[in-house]
């Protein structure tokens, strides 16, 4: 479904519920659209079930933009519904991120473990046991909303957000998990810290919508060797 949003944007809605296959499908649509090199296409903002397409209203209007986009959408939908065609996510990337899970880097680790009726070790094992899908980017440069975490460690945001969450903090909010790329206020349950830089001014965001991420546990010393800060 294509809907007008503003003078310079339209929204493509692909589903009315979150599904793990959608980020791959949306990524395939983005690639289709970018390959056309339209001079009026200004930005693509994928999210869980939608793609916001920003165009230059000096060059094109809503109806023209929608008409141009429709064939690319049809092609991608065809691909994803066909069982014989290769999955649109064949170029899927998996990124491994080190995390030092501890009380000194994860101020909510202990409380979250208690609330979930688990040991801290069990929380760590559960968080590292599966890979996560990047559903959307937003909130801050390089901030990736990932999911879904095991229901055993799913926990709501803190009632009172922290004024400052340190850069690299790894958090849980309900069934989502994320790494804070820069220090900022935030309400996620912080269980550890990732020393990998998620946003760089030259290289931009390490993660993008459609990627898969796997966390692995590192020791205090490994964390420091990787550039982690205490």
């Amino acid at each position, binding site marked *: 479904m294509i809907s007008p949003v503003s003078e310079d*944007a339209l929204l493509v809605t692909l589903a009315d519920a979150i599904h793990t296959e959608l980020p791959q499908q949306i990524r395939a649509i983005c690639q289709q659209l970018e390959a056309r090199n339209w001079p009026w296409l200004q*930005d693509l903002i994928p999210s869980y079930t939608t793609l916001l397409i*920003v165009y230059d209203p000096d060059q094109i*209007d809503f109806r023209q933009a929608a008409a141009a986009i429709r064939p690319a959408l049809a092609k991608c939908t065809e691909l994803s519904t066909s069982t014989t065609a290769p999955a649109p996510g064949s170029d899927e990337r998996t990124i491994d991120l080190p995390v030092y899970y501890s009380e000194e880097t994860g101020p909510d680790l202990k409380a979250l473990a208690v609330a979930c009726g688990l040991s801290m070790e069990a929380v760590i094992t559960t968080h590292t046991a599966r890979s996560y899908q990047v559903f959307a980017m*937003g909130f801050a440069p390089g901030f990736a909303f990932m999911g879904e975490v095991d229901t055993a460690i799913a926990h709501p945001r803190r009632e009172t957000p922290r004024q400052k969450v340190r850069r690299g903090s790894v958090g849980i909010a309900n069934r989502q998990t994320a790494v804070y790329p820069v220090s900022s206020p935030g309400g996620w349950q912080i269980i550890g810290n990732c020393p990998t830089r998620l946003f760089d001014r030259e290289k931009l965001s390490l993660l993008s919508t459609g990627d898969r991420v796997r966390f692995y546990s590192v020791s205090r010393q490994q964390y420091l060797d990787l550039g982690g800060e205490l």
Partner: protein
Amino acid sequence: MSSHQKGLWVTHAGVSSSIQDSGRCGFRRQGLAVGGAMDLHAFNWANKLLDNPPGSACLEIMLGGFQATAERDMTLALTGAYAEITLNGVQVCHWQTLTLRAGDRLAIGHSQSGRILYLALPGGIDSPMWFGSQSVVPRERMEGLGPIGANTRLLTRTLSEHASDRKVPASSRPDYQTELTLRVIPGYQIDRFSKDDLLRLTTSVYELTQQSDRMGFRLGGPALTDVPSGIISEGLTIGAVQIPGDGQPIVLLNDCQTIGGYPKPGVVASLDCHRLSQRLPGQTIRFEFTDIADAQNERRLFNRYFRHTRWVRSATGLVWV
């Protein structure tokens, strides 16, 4: 020091002054805000007064309180909010070019009407380019990309001397005191709002609250009573009218987050976002619905005016070319 390193020496930066151009294009998917000058009307006029290329970087001075000294002879342009402006202690007008001699002191008092002033230098202000833009988004706290502080030198990109004294025609100088009606392009979620609430939104008077910054302006007034539940987070645009649980509208502006999950009846037309950005807390706002084609056409005419006009010889107005 060679002459090209002399510029405008800022001694008081005011509440918040930052370099802004027309904003970043194509980086929202990275989680980067659009940024850019909030009031393109005053911004475009500041550049037009100096014949700068459209979108050249200016200094966006929030609420005034700014002082600077010229280190060499220069012409600058000043537009936007109304405040007491003096050159060496003598009151001068803005919405025009100002010629400064080396050593001259420019002082801008606190804004009495309007929120933002734009200061343009010939050829645009020189500053680092990141993400295809010179715009600074303070909330992202990127190293070296914050608001300017005192004891900062603003340098021009060209040394061309602008001898011509120019004034923006009186008809193009806005009155920021008038009540503003924001025209909203209805969005696909409009059906999720009740008829009563949409009527309330378009017939009530809202007041701009203190919670208004480059990210967005929070309004206060008759709350919508039947607010739809949150939506799955989706991409946002400047001007989006978010209705959080308390039923009070928030209009998102240039430094807003890139995705969000509050329900939205629609998006404010860009020319009205420019007008809104100049309003101060306590001023009143109304909403009405408009048509996307009308909004797009008005914006095209606005852009075309600044691109396809030139100054007449008397420097008092513009003609189409």
